[in-house]
């Protein structure tokens, strides 16, 4: 008897955890896209000379560059979606 109750309790806990995770994931979805945008802006600001943007003094870009692989990858990814900002926005807010 105890084993059955324990098993049911574990399942409820497990389902609850999944729901909780999904809810938490949904709650931060917009913040995550905002964070991604900020990281992209940071990348463009520091490494702007790569793409012809006004950039800080060259030595600041060069000093930070070895630590910014993630931002570089993000910048490259953003190039793909740069032409469809509205579509991206719709996707962030889960419209359509």
């Amino acid at each position, binding site marked *: 008897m105890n084993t059955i109750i324990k098993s049911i309790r574990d399942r409820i806990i497990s389902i609850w955890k999944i729901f909780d*995770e999904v809810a*938490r*994931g949904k*709650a*931060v979805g917009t*913040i*995550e896209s*905002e*964070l991604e945008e*900020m*990281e992209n*802006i*940071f990348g463009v*600001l*520091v490494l702007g*000379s*790569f793409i012809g943007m006004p950039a*800080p*003094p*060259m*030595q*600041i870009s*060069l*000093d*930070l*560059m*070895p*630590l*910014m*692989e993630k931002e*570089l*990858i993000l910048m*490259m990814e953003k190039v793909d979606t740069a032409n469809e900002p509205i579509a991206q926005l719709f996707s962030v807010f889960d419209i359509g």
Partner: protein
Amino acid sequence: MNRATNVFFMGKGGVGKSTSSALFSVFLAQKGFQVLIVSLDPAHNQSDIFERSLSDKPLQIAPNLSAIEIDQEFWIRQYLKDVHNQINRTYSYLTAFNLEKYFSVIKYSPGLEEYALILAFEKIQKNFSRCDYLIFDMPPTALGLRFFSLPSLSLIWIEHLLALRKEIIEKRDLITTIKLIKKEIERDKVLNKINELRNQYQDLKDTFEDRKQTQINLVLNPDKLSFAESIRIVEALQEININLHRTVSNKMKLDSSFEDIDETFTGIPMINFPYSETPLIGFHNLQEFLKTNGDHLEKQLSISPPNLS
């Protein structure tokens, strides 16, 4: 403990920055101070003035006096090599960015010239802190001013990048809190680096602004062009909160007028190197010039002898 005083000689091209800085170095060395004269000017006139082949290793010219020349190209190459090596160590997808190609042209980027001089300056300050005086023969105005303004300009960018990075970290922390993810124990490496850069540039800015550590001598000639450019140099330095220590009137003839200089640079001490009929080339000629004009110079400089205890 850094006790060396940095003395910079700035001015329009051709006014005699190299000769004035060489004379000043010989004068101080003769007084018993430990002096290192550093040529930051790519024209490298110090080799010609002292008639010795100078390099990045100090060469003793006379008792208490050594000289070195900074090779800008070497510092740029070395710096880019370091950055490239760091990228190779930290990036996993290096080839995807085609960075090799980028690095082959980056050495021609504007801004690296003055940064090479800054790197050399920092190294010299650290390695020769036991000297009493580090005398810097500066490049002509444009590069010289970019050298002094580099810390202030870089700090403006650094402050903005720092604010944005902090915002990013706050957002990231918020997400990890909501998602119940374990927080990263290691702090953001980019933030650490930005803070490190901020300290580096702030130290440089403080050094340049501190009149005890840094003395800027403006060399000028009694002619309109040199005088006009000198005024612009002073204004540009004041904009970045750097004050002139003294003016050096070089090649002054007996009939030259001091009035304009006196009026414009009121309150700024002036030293006067009279026009020399003999070319000031070679240590012997510099010594001879100081023998004739040394007393006059001593009165104007009023530097007490070094404390040798």
